[in-house]
């Protein structure tokens, strides 16, 4: 299967800390991908059971957010394709001004 350069960036980011759950916006910032590019990738990965998503347990006063990480199948898929691609990672912020 052929995967895009942007998908590789996402997979590479998730591989950096495979057990860490990540927010979509921070994935967008870390990969430099805009929402219109990032979310279709996340959706496709989730549809193929390569990515798992969960709603974080909400704390009072803040709405819950979606979190993502690779499944075991996704990890082996990502390792295989990232190693195969062997290209350097792209890092630039997609959007400025994240709330801390």
């Amino acid at each position, binding site marked *: 299967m052929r995967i895009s350069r942007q998908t590789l960036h996402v997979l590479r980011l998730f591989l950096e800390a495979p057990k860490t759950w990540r927010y979509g916006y921070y994935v967008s910032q870390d990969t430099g991908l805009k*929402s*219109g590019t990032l979310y279709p990738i996340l959706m496709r990965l989730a549809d193929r059971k390569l990515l798992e998503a969960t709603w974080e347990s909400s704390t009072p006063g803040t*709405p819950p*957010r*979606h979190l993502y990480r690779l499944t075991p199948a996704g990890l082996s898929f990502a390792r295989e394709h990232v190693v195969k691609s062997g290209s350097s990672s792209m890092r630039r912020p997609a*959007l400025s*001004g994240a709330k801390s």
Partner: protein
Amino acid sequence: MTTGLRKLAVALLGTVVRHSPPSSRSWGGAMLREMECITTDWAALRWAFGSTSTIFRYSIERAWRDERSDNSNDGSMKAVGKAVGGLALAVAFCIGVLAVCILSLTRVSTFLFPEWHLAQMRWAQCMSVLGMPETIFVIVAAMLWRKRKTVSAGILACAVMLATHFLVYVSDHG
């Protein structure tokens, strides 16, 4: 403080999420939640536009996939979803630009420069319904041509339709 741009972004994405099919509503909700973490209003608006386009495409892809689950081709599904989503986005963009151009003539100019009577001047009307939108369409289509060919093609198609409509109207009404 919530600005007009932020309200527009939240309203746009919120409406799309509310009216999206159940399969994509969870994803839409996730994008909406993330938007609340973006401090810059323009960035939030861009996020909302990107998310809206994604929800359209995903909904169409899912509907297509559900309908043709037996003998579907993944590549063609994506292509069709992308094309229809891109065209829908282009049409929405063109309607928005046209509405803003016309409103700027009928409302803003009357409010800012009442003595100019721009809304009654024929050349100003032509500029607002044809000149300004067509210029914006061509510039945006040229900018998007390499990266978003479908959206760009949709905008150009709208530009041609608008020009044709204008010519037909002028020839009929003199």
